[in-house]
């Protein structure tokens, strides 16, 4: 799905990529970034502003007017090929607009995406904690495992507390989403709070991980540095929060 845009004031609710209806087709203009697997995807779902709000359009990979600008090289998320994709007078049939004339519930889609992101943040944070616990129990300094040192133990405890916090919040947000219309009014708020808090905590926990491993936190022989780079990317995805 192509949703993000290279803009200092990027707002997912105000896409600068535009789709204009012209008889039986839409014409899309704009540029997207961080589009996963754009080089191999048969179809790309493009989020664009329309005169009715924000729509989602299925664009075929060889559609005239769509081109890959470049493969992005970022600090994290390296294993996932991400591309900048440009649309210049790219025509797509009107029936490729998801949800037909009525369109999709874009706010819900964004909320659910934020909840999905939050869940992955919990996974990364838990990976950092489990690795750090094992490492600090095995690493001996001054005759004792460093896990027994207060400065390390406090970080482990803090990480454990915050992971339970972001997991509970993510589950609550997911549960809210599963209530559908009954809790529609709560979904935007809870999904935003969840993503913001989870992004903040996963980065803090990954930073703890680097601290606890010391020099080993920086080298490729330990996954902590990889998780740290990935954790930093979270706050950038789908709208800046506390970057």
């Amino acid at each position, binding site marked *: 799905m192509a949703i993000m845009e290279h803009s200092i004031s990027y707002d997912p609710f105000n896409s600068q990529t535009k789709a204009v209806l012209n008889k039986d087709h839409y014409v899309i203009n704009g540029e997207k970034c961080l589009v996963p697997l754009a080089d191999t995807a048969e179809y790309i779902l493009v989020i664009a502003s329309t005169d009715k709000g924000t729509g989602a359009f*299925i664009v075929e990979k060889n559609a005239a007017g769509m081109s890959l600008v470049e493969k992005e090289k970022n600090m994290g998320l390296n*294993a996932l090929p991400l591309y900048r994709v440009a649309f210049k007078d790219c025509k797509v049939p009107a029936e490729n607009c998801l*949800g037909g004339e009525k369109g999709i519930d874009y706010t*819900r889609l964004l909320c659910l995406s934020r909840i999905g992101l939050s869940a*992955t943040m919990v996974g*990364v944070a838990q990976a950092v904690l489990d690795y750090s616990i094992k490492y600090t129990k095995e690493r001996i300094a001054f005759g004792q495992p460093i896990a027994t040192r207060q400065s390390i133990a406090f970080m482990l405890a803090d990480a454990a507390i915050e992971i339970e916090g972001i997991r*509970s919040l993510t589950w609550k947000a997911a*549960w809210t989403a599963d209530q559908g219309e009954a809790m529609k009014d709560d979904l935007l708020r809870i999904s935003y709070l969840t993503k913001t808090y989870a992004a903040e905590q996963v980065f803090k926990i990954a930073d703890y991980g680097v601290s606890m491993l010391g020099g080993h936190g920086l080298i*490729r022989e330990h996954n902590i540095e990889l998780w740290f780079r990935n954790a930093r990317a979270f706050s950038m995805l789908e709208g800046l929060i506390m970057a």
Partner: protein
Amino acid sequence: MSTFSLDEDQRQIKESMESFAADELRPISRDCDEEFRVPPEFLEKTWGLGLTANIIPEEYGGYGFNRSCLNNVIMAEALAYGDLSLSRGNGAESFRVAHSGNGNRCSEEEISSNFLR
């Protein structure tokens, strides 16, 4: 949400995803990060497991699972524990669309027959 415990289906989802993450994601995580790529065979495995297509109706090649954001959150956490980039690679779109639960009409008949066959 009257309980915070997982039901039997959710426990199975969690365990199978944790096992998949440990066996298939974590071991290739470092190489994929340094080579800037997701191996095609990895994507085939995830497709075979139904991670991407789980809620797509059976007549369109999916598994017809009920849509549940909570189930997908359990799945996403377990996969990201293995590797974040690969977890998003196998279901980058699923997180947003297929995983997005009810209300997006992504599998409505016309769209499904045009794009999922």
